């Protein structure tokens, strides 16, 4: 784990309005207000962080991976990416990224998809969809509300032939992304427990989430 890397003179650990430690394999949710910046930090490196966003005052508006890819004309998330909702609105904009590779094509692991991908023997392993189900249920939502997500720090190259495979993550300890909220959003995270593929180096690790007020 490395030291905190400052991206703006105005944002320090001391003046963060929220600072959350999320253990390996655990879920988390919290509200990010319009104008606030959320930093998601891969504290120990090579950890996939499965993330969803919902409009805070109307959960029927939520993250859309297809709209986000279509609006960018690209499959990967990076600095400047506008995180789009299913209603065509910008939810957040990515303003900083020390890693350079984030996926939104491969979705979250689940007990069910693990059986298909890795064999029925992997059914009883904790998975992101179960984290999401538990976490969104706290907000009155259910399985139907879980949509394809962003996988921060997950490395899923897609070849021109269509070939798609999860390979070793490239994030180092302390790597981060920062997003500024363009509307009030509920952020829901599953700190991925997957140990059947290299999305987190076969070794899930803790992460940190920090939120700051706007600088204006």
């Amino acid at each position: 784990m490395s030291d905190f890397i400052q991206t703006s003179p105005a944002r320090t650990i001391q003046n963060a309005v929220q600072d959350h430690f999320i253990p390996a394999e655990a879920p988390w949710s919290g509200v990010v207000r319009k104008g606030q910046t959320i930093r998601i930090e891969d504290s120990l490196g090579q950890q996939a962080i499965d993330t969803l966003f919902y409009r805070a005052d109307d959960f029927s508006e939520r993250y859309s991976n297809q709209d986000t890819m279509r609006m960018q004309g690209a499959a990967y998330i990076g600095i400047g990416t506008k995180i789009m909702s299913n209603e065509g609105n910008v939810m957040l904009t990515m303003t900083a990224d020390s890693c350079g590779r984030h996926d939104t094509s491969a979705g979250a692991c689940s007990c069910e998809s693990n059986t298909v991908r890795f064999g029925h023997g992997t059914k009883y392993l904790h998975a992101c969809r179960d984290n999401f189900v538990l976490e969104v249920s706290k907000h009155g939502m259910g399985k139907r509300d879980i949509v394809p997500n962003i996988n921060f720090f997950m490395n899923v190259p897609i070849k021109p032939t269509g070939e798609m495979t999860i390979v070793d993550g490239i994030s180092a300890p302390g790597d981060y992304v920062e997003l500024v909220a363009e509307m009030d959003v509920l952020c829901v995270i599953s700190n991925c427990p997957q140990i059947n593929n290299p999305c987190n180096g076969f070794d899930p690790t803790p992460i940190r989430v920090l939120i700051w007020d706007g600088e204006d």
Partner: protein
Amino acid sequence: MMHVRRSPEEIAANRARYEEHQKKGLEFAPKTLPGPSPVPASAIAAAAIIHQETIPGGWYWSTKLLRGEAIRIDQGEGNSTVALVAWNAEDTSERINLVDTAKVQWTTALGKGRVIFSDMGRVMFSIIEDSSGAHDCLMGGSTAASNAAKYPGEKTRNTRDNLIIIAVKLGLDRRDIPGILNLFAPVRLAEAGGFGWQGKRSNSGDYVELRAEMDMLVGFSTCPHPLDPDPAYQPKPVVITRYKAAAPAADDLCRTATAEAVRGFENNTLMQA
């Protein structure tokens, strides 16, 4: 920060297991998938046909589809993208899941021999025929805003609104609209990660046949794909034929082509037991 790392031995064992799965998945073991289906399509026996619908360009349609039935989606004489969504008829919280479909089959390129998964690790459709081989499971469909930008001043219909209408008429709502599979949209990703419309727009006369592997509600929209190179809004009609499919043989291609499909169908069997 209290955290105990896994042991190097444990990590090495899991990595070895993944690499074995990856090798099998990428090498299409145990069966090699065939090329595109021949054009024109063979006739469907009249006695097997349950219903035939011509959807005008830019419109929508939905149908119930029972396990063992199939649909042929035929471009006819035009070039048209068909957006498709589907829900389990008995529990609409189970629905088409394209991120899982691509991930578990190690490819975004869907074609004859591949299957389409739900979010519950079960197979919804088998792609039993496909003359096109050019489909898009990543980019989604048009919206009012994307059409307004592409066709300024023109009166158009869009996929997002069509799917809202379908969902609401089925008693569902906006929360229930899943990611979209675009049939007949040759979209691929360049090495740098940008999308492109590769080569020909698609051939008139192309068709896809999907066999239902569970009872479903299926929705279709026939608006142009957001990357369709035609600058004019002129979507063409699409003919959909719902028919009683032949029972799958023991060596059915879609059920046996990959280890992943075999395990998906094992999950279907448990559901239907």
